[in-house]
């Protein structure tokens, strides 16, 4: 059973997605437990795979029994296994959260929403686990198509935002396909390990150089790396709460994973970092992304839009961390992938709760919420502390390693960018806490006057609150236990430079 776990992780959500319309036709209320069941099995399988990788090393799974490079293979090493657990766990939490939110926002489309939801998760899982570049393209397209649909059914203006995403996302995927093609033309292989074996003698070739450039630009479009981030704010703000809760933590981080794979597994670090000045370019692009994201976040009055620009800045952290190109900084960048999934999940969960209760997600909707929704605001405080980087939350540790790596490499501008971003995050969240603490709305005062505490509290439903609390607990848990995670998993995921 555990030998088949790698394939089950991807196939179970896929088969369940194919059967969801049937399940929904039988009875609509069966869809919710069905989705949770399939994602639970997938999460258990990814935990099993992580356990196997920690104890036995890299897993190779040959699909159809054909050895690579003639067949497709799944390769699970430490980085993969961590990403698999992150993706399936996040999907499970979003599925638990989704019930009330969907009933309010898109009540007539629930069955097909869950179908596309499971297909999206299948796409992400397939991208993360595969060891074949063309297979990655196929699953990238599954994930992208599902994403376009999930975003387009949102609030007013969502179809246009999704259309812009379609155009830019297709450009990104096509650049990736061109890069795969160029590499195939000069090597004849599509398997990542095989390519890494054949390519070193071709490093001087122009074809390989152009292929590498197109890989990076295509992935940068999917990753929303500044200045190719223009699709992200509109798309994630106007999408339904559940859709942005699934897409925001995962899409950009899966793209960063693909970039790490391409840069360090397919092309050896010798090529990516020493032969080409790619690391320098990535460092500066990351720095600009951090500044741009932080400054644009300050200018927003819509809470979800502000979170989108925080995502742009976080992508800058990770790309800059890889650009610093020493072991400590890359360790920090990979730890930050894990932290950022959890933190973004928390932020968008709170945004979804606000949307559910207030029907809007502007900053002004936070007024008086510390009294009305104390539990939600407590979770928000935890996530905010993590984004700023306060110990013992997880955000502190990844920032610590990134700053340490940058100091060791002498990249002082990156250190300044990280500290500047923390400062801006403090301003952003304290602004929200100020609005939340004082009621700026007269009707709040009138209703709250003279009533008991329990009558005033208008808290979010449990199915939305429990995942938010699990995330907040995870933030503290990962922060406290970051050393075992680093030593057992992330240390082996860092490429040898």
């Amino acid at each position, binding site marked *: 059973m555990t030998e088949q776990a790698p394939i089950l992780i991807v196939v179970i959500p896929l088969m369940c997605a194919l059967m969801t319309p049937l399940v929904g036709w039988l009875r609509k209320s069966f869809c919710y437990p069905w989705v949770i069941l399939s994602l639970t099995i997938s999460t258990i399988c990814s935990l099993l795979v992580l356990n196997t990788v920690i104890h036995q090393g890299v897993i190779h799974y040959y*699909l159809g029994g054909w050895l690579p490079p003639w067949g497709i293979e799944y390769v699970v090493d430490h980085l993969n296994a961590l990403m698999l657990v992150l993706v399936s766990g996040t999907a499970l939490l979003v599925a638990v959260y989704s019930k009330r939110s969907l009933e309010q926002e898109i009540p007539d489309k629930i069955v097909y929403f869950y179908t*596309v939801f499971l297909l999206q998760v299948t796409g992400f899982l397939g991208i993360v686990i595969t060891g074949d570049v063309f297979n990655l393209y196929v699953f990238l397209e*599954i994930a992208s198509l599902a994403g376009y649909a999930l975003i387009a059914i949102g609030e007013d203006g969502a179809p246009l935002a999704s259309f812009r995403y379609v155009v830019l996302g297709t450009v990104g995927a096509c650049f990736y396909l061109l890069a795969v093609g160029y590499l195939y033309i*000069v090597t004849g292989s599509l398997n990542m390990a095989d390519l890494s074996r054949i390519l070193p003698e071709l490093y001087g070739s122009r074809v390989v150089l152009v292929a590498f450039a197109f890989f990076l630009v295509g992935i940068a479009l999917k990753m929303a790396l500044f200045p190719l981030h223009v699709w992200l704010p509109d798309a994630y703000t106007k999408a339904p709460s559940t859709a942005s809760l699934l897409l925001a933590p995962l899409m950009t981080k899966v793209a960063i994973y693909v970039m790490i794979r391409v840069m360090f597994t397919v092309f050896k670090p010798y090529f990516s970092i020493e032969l080409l000045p790619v690391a320098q370019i990535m460092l500066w692009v990351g720095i600009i992304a951090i500044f741009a994201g932080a400054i644009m976040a300050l200018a927003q009055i819509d809470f979800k839009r502000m979170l989108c620009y925080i995502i742009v800045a976080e992508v800058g952290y990770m790309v800059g961390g890889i650009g610093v190109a020493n072991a400590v900084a890359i360790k920090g960048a990979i730890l930050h992938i894990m932290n950022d999934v959890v933190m973004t999940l928390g932020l968008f969960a709170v945004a979804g709760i606000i949307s559910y209760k207030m029907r809007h997600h502007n900053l002004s909707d936070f007024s008086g919420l510390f009294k009305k929704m104390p539990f939600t605001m407590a979770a928000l405080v935890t996530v905010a502390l993590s984004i700023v980087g306060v110990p013992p939350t997880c955000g502190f540790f990844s920032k610590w390693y990134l700053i340490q790596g940058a100091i060791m490499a002498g990249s002082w501008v990156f250190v300044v960018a990280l500290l500047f971003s923390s400062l801006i995050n403090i301003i952003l969240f304290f602004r929200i806490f100020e609005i939340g603490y004082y009621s700026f709305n007269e009707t709040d005062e009138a209703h709250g006057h003279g009533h008991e505490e329990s009558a005033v509290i208008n808290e979010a439903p449990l199915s939305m609150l429990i995942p938010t609390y699990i995330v907040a607990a995870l933030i503290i848990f990962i922060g406290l236990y970051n050393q075992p995670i680093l030593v057992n998993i992330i240390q082996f995921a860092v490429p040898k430079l």
Partner: protein
Amino acid sequence: MRFLSFIVTVLTGAVLIYGTLDMPDWGDPNSPASRHVSPRYITKTEVETATPNMVTSVLADYRGYDTLGETTVIFTAGVSCILLLRRRKKTTG
């Protein structure tokens, strides 16, 4: 804006053409792509898959998982179109 798009397009095209300068010539039977993975597909297709059509044997057997992914893409597009376009008939009155 149009000018910027034009510049980006010309740049991309120039980079792509620059990349083709080191590629094997068109129709070269000794290109790396013809020598590495595909000879086994050509020589062993009848023996291993009992299919004389090599494209079929690669599509359905050696790389059958990509075909599963492709059918999933079609399914995703179909369900997405239902999700996006279906409107509930408004009850009259």
